[in-house]
C-alpha cells in the first residue's frame, strides 16, 4: 500500500473578487522509501499541492474536494489539533529559504528541540540530546558545540542542514522538500541533495521533492510527476520521462534547456506565451494555447491522464515520443527513438578589443563601532584582468560571493575600483568622473538581474524607456517616442504596451523591457548580470534567444554574468571562471567546459545538475566539498586550496599565476592544472597565429 495516496485533489484560493484553482484534480501516490519528484514552472500548483498535504494553505485557501490518505488515514477533514499531530511528526517539510524559515532570536538547538517537545513526552534535556543527534545526522561539524549558536552564525548551506535536521527530528515517514536547494550555490546544492538522498536510504523515509529544475531530480527521484496549470500532465518512472517524454509540455521543457543546444549553439526551443491564469482556466487542454501540436479537439475537450501502460500516463490526445509497454514490471520502449538532428555550429566574427580590464581590485571596508573604525576589508575582487572583443560574449561564472557581480558593477560605474584600470575606447573608466563621464556612460549599459526591482514601479514602460534618451539628451520628444516603440518591437513586445506599468508585465516580458532600456543608447557593451536566473526554463529560453538574435543583428558585445554554467556556455564565446575574487580560469567556452584545467572549474561542472538520469547517477561522489571561505580573511596562496581535492603544501605558500594550459588561448591559475602546460615557445607561435 502506498504511504501517501492523493486522489483527485482540488485546492482553491479565494481572492477578493475571484477564485484561483491552484490545484485541479491531482492524483499522486508515494510508496515507502521512494522519492517522488514534482516538477513544473512557477504557478503550476506544485507548492500548493505540497501545502495541501501539510494543511498549511495560505489565507483563503481550502481543499475543495479530493482525498489525501497518509498510511491509509484520511487527513483532509482532520481538525487542527489532529493536523498538528501529523505536521512535523509524521510529515516533515523543508522550505525554500532557510534564512526566513528559522527564528533569528532563538538558538538552532532550541528550535529543533521545540519540534521534539511538541510531539514527544520527553524532558528538555532529552530533546536537546535529540537535537544534537539529528544535527550530527545531517553532517553538521561539531554538532555539540554548534547547537547553541544562532541562525545568523551559520552559512546558507548549513542553515538548510538545520532545516533538514528540524524536519527529521521526529523520524517522519514522509519528507516534503519544496525547492530545497534553489537558494543555494551549485556546489552546496549538490551536497544537500546528496544528504537528503542518503538520509532517505538510511531512515527509510519517502521523499517528495518539489522543484522547477529538471536536473535536480534527474539522478535522485524514482518517479516524476510533471505539473502544469494545477494538473499533473505526465507521470512515470524517471528514466522513461527523461528518455521518452510523451506530453508536449514535458518535451518542450527539455528542448528549452540551454545545455541541450550548448554544442550546436542553435536557437533554443521556447514555449510561446505564458502559463494560463488559474482564475479562469482555459477550456480543454490547459496547455493547448502554447502547444505546437494542438488541434481543435485540444481546445474543446479535456484529455484524461492515460497511456499505453499504467506506468506511464499523460494528459494528451496527440502524445509525442514513442510507444511503450510494460514487460515484467519494466517499462520498455517499443520503437527506437528518432535520430537526433545535427546542426553545424555557427562561428561569430570577433573583432578588436572593446574593453580591457587590468588588475582590477575592489575591497569593501569593514567598519566597527560608533566611530566607523576600519577593521578590515572584504576582498571582493582581487586582481582580475580580461579583454572583451567586439561582437563576442564573455561569460563570467562562479558561485555567489566570488566577485562576478562586483566586476559588472565596476564596468558600468556603480562601484569604483579600489585599484586597477578599465580601458575602454582609449580611456580609463576607473578614473573619469563628472559630465564627461556621464556622457560616456551610454557606451556601457547594464541589464539587471531582477527586472522587477530595476524598473520604477511608478513609471509606465514608455517613460522608463524614454528616460535614458532624456538623460543623454538624444532627439526630440517625438523622436524619442518613435525610438521607444521601435525598440519595444525589437525585443519582441507589442508597441502599444508603453502605457503599462512594470507589474503588468510577466517576468520574461520585464526582462525584455530591461534589455530594451539597455539597448536604447546604442551601447558598445552590455553587461548582463544574471539576466535569466529568476525565470522559468521556457521563458529563460525566450530571453536567451532574444539576446542571441539581437547580438547577431546589431553586432552587440556582452559580458554575461551567471552562476549557471550551462546558460553561460550556451551564450558565450569565452568563459572566465571566478573563485573568491580571483579569475582562476579563462578560455574559449568549449575548452573550459569540455577540458577544464582548474580543479574548481571541473568541480563546478560536475556539481551542476544535468537533466539526464544516467549521467546524474554516474557522478554520485564527485563535486566540491566544504563551503566558500570568508573574503575578509581569504586563504593564503591559492584561494581555492581549502576545498581543492588535489591541494598540496605549495598551494598554501605560493599563489599560482595565470598560465596557458592545453592550448595557448586558455589560461588557468593552478600549480597542478588538469591539462598539460603549454611551453613559452609555442605560446608565442600561437599568439602570432592568432594575431
Amino acid at each position, binding site marked *: 500500500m502506498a504511504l501517501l495516496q492523493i486522489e483527485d485533489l482540488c485546492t482553491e484560493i479565494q481572492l*477578493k473578487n475571484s477564485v484561483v484553482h491552484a490545484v485541479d484534480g491531482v492524483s499522486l501516490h508515494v510508496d515507502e522509501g521512494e522519492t517522488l519528484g514534482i516538477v513544473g514552472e512557477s504557478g503550476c500548483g506544485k507548492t500548493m499541492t505540497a501545502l495541501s498535504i501539510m494543511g498549511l494553505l495560505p489565507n483563503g485557501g481550502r481543499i475543495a474536494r479530493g482525498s489525501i490518505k497518509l498510511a491509509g488515514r484520511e487527513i483532509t477533514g482532520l481538525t487542527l489539533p489532529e493536523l498538528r499531530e501529523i505536521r512535523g511528526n509524521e510529515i516533515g517539510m523543508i522550505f525554500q529559504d532557510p534564512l526566513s524559515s528559522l527564528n533569528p532570536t532563538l538558538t538552532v538547538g532550541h528550535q529543533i528541540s521545540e519540534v521534539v517537545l511538541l510531539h514527544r513526552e520527553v524532558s528538555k534535556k532529552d530533546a536537546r540530546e535529540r537535537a544534537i543527534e539529528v544535527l550530527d545526522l545531517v553532517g553538521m561539524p561539531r554538532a555539540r558545540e554548534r547547537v547553541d549558536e544562532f541562525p545568523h552564525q551559520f552559512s546558507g548551506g548549513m542553515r538548510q542542514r538545520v532545516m533538514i535536521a528540524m524536519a527529521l527530528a521526529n523520524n517522519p515517514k514522509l519528507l516534503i522538500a519544496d525547492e530545497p536547494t534553489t537558494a543555494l550555490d551549485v556546489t552546496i546544492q549538490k551536497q544537500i541533495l546528496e544528504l537528503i538522498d542518503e538520509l532517505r536510504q538510511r531512515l527509510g523515509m519517502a521523499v517528495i521533492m518539489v522543484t522547477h529544475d529538471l536536473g535536480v531530480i534527474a539522478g535522485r527521484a524514482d518517479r516524476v510527476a510533471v505539473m502544469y496549470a494545477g494538473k499533473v500532465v505526465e507521470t512515470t518512472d524517471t528514466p522513461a520521462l527523461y528518455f521518452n517524454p510523451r506530453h508536449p509540455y514535458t518535451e518542450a521543457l527539455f528542448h528549452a534547456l540551454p545545455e541541450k543546444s550548448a554544442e550546436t549553439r542553435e536557437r533554443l526551443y521556447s514555449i510561446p*506565451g505564458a502559463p494560463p491564469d488559474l482564475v479562469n482556466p482555459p477550456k480543454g487542454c490547459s496547455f493547448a494555447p502554447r502547444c505546437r501540436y494542438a488541434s481543435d479537439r485540444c481546445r474543446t475537450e479535456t484529455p484524461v491522464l492515460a497511456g499505453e501502460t499504467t506506468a506511464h500516463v499523460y494528459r494528451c490526445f496527440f502524445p509525442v515520443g514513442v510507444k511503450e509497454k510494460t514487460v515484467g514490471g519494466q517499462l520498455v520502449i517499443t520503437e527506437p527513438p528518432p535520430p537526433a538532428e545535427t546542426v553545424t555550429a555557427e562561428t561569430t566574427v570577433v573583432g578588436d578589443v572593446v574593453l580591457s580590464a587590468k588588475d582590477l581590485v575592489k575591497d569593501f571596508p569593514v567598519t566597527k563601532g560608533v566611530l566607523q573604525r576600519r577593521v578590515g576589508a572584504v576582498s571582493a575582487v582581487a586582481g582580475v584582468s580580461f579583454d572583451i572583443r567586439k561582437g563576442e560574449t564573455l561569460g563570467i561564472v562562479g558561485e555567489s560571493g566570488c566577485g562576478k557581480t562586483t566586476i559588472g558593477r565596476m564596468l558600468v560605474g556603480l562601484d569604483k575600483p579600489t585599484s586597477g584600470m578599465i580601458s575602454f575606447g582609449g580611456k580609463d573608466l576607473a578614473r573619469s568622473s563628472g559630465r564627461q563621464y556621464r556622457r560616456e*556612460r*551610454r557606451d556601457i549599459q547594464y541589464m539587471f538581474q531582477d527586472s522587477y526591482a530595476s524598473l520604477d514601479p*511608478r513609471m509606465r514602460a514608455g517613460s522608463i524607456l524614454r*528616460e535614458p534618451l532624456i*538623460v543623454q539628451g538624444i532627439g526630440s520628444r517625438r523622436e524619442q517616442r518613435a525610438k521607444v516603440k521601435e525598440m519595444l518591437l525589437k525585443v*519582441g513586445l507589442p508597441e502599444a504596451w508603453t502605457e503599462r506599468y512594470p507589474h*503588468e508585465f510577466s517576468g520574461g516580458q520585464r526582462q525584455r523591457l530591461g534589455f530594451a532600456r539597455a539597448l536604447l*543608447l546604442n551601447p558598445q557593451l552590455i553587461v548582463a548580470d544574471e539576466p535569466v536566473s529568476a525565470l522559468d526554463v521556457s521563458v529563460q529560453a525566450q530571453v536567451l534567444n532574444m539576446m542571441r538574435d539581437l547580438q547577431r543583428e546589431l553586432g552587440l558585445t556582452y559580458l554575461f554574468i551567471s552562476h549557471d554554467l550551462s546558460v553561460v556556455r550556451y551564450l558565450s564565446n569565452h568563459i572566465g571562471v571566478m573563485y573568491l575574487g580571483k579569475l582562476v580560469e579563462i578560455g574559449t567556452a568549449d575548452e573550459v567546459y569540455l577540458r577544464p584545467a582548474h580543479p574548481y572549474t571541473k568541480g563546478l561542472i560536475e556539481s551542476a545538475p544535468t537533466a539526464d538520469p544516467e549521467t546524474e547517477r554516474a557522478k554520485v561522489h564527485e563535486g566540491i566539498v566544504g563551503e566558500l571561505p570568508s573574503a575578509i580573511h581569504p586563504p593564503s596562496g591559492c584561494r581555492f586550496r581549502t576545498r581543492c581535492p588535489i591541494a598540496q603544501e605549495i598551494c598554501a605558500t605560493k599563489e599560482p599565476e595565470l598560465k596557458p594550459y592545453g592550448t595557448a588561448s586558455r589560461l588557468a591559475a593552478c600549480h597542478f592544472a588538469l591539462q598539460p602546460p603549454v611551453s613559452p615557445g609555442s605560446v608565442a607561435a600561437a599568439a602570432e597565429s592568432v594575431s
Partner: protein
Amino acid sequence: MALEAQAIAASDAELGVAPSSSQRGMLRRAGEVFVENRLAMVGLGFIVFIVLFCFVGPHIYVTNQVDTDLDNSLCGPSAQHLFGCNELGYDQLGRLMIGGQTSLEVGLAAALVSVVVGTLYGAISGFAGGFVDSVMMRIVDAGLSLPSLMVIMILSVIFHPTPTVIIFIIAVFYWFGVARLVRGETLALRNREYVQAVKVIGGRPLRSVLRHIVPNAIGTIIVQATFAVADSILTLSVLGFLTLGVAPPSTDWGSMLSGGLTYIQGANYWWLIYPPGVLIILTCISFNFIGDALRDAFETRLQRR
C-alpha cells in the same frame, strides 16, 4: 521579432492574462482602493462638508462678524442665532465658519510647507549619505530636541500673529519629523536597482531623487501630509487656546474654545464650548482616516485584481 511581439500580444489576450488595468492611471487605481475604505469615505465626506460649511456657508448664513453687538452678549440659541452668541454678541454659527476658514487655511498651508521642505531635505540627506547625511540629520535632531510648543509660543508673542506668520511658525517645527521619516524611506529606496539604473544611463543624482525616490516615497509622504494637516490645526488651536492665536476680530476654533472656557463655570453656555471642540476633533480624526486609507491606496501591491 515583430512577429514575436504579435504572438505575445495574441497569446496574452487568448490566455486572458491581459491586465484589465492597462489603461488606468496610478491615481485612478489608487482611487479604487481608497473608495473601498468606509471610514476614509466618511472622513472625506466630513472634510468636504466642513470646507463647504466654512467657505460657502457665510454666503448663505450671513452674519456680522466685524462689529460687536453687546445686546446679544451670551444669548442662547434662537431662531435668529441658531447656535447663540458669544460674550461680544458675535453669532456663534457664523463665527464657527470664519474660525474654520482660518483653521483650515493654516492647517493645510502649514502642512504643505513643512511636507515639501521636509521631503526634499530628507530625500537629499538620505540619498547623499555619509558625511552630508550626518550633518543634515544632526541639524534635524537639534531641531527636534527644542521644546517646540514653547518656542512657537515665544515666536507668536514676538511676531504679530497673522495667519501667514503662524503658518510659517508651525511649519518651521513640523518639517523636522517629515525630513527624518522621508530620509529613512530614502535609505531603503536608494539601494533599489531602479535608482541605480539612473546612474548607469548617466543621470544626475537630482534626477534620482526627484523622479524616482520621491514618487516612490509618495505613500509615506501623503500619509504624513494628512497627519500634518491635523497636527497643524491642533497646534493652531493650542495657540488660540492660549490666546496667542490670530488677533480679533479674526478668530479660529482654538481661540473660540478658549473664549468659551471663561464662561464654563456658573451658567451653562454649552454653545461656546462644544461646537468648536467637536469640530476640531472631527476634522483631525477625518484627516487621520484619510491618511490611513491613502497609505493603503498607494501601496501598488494592493491595487491588483
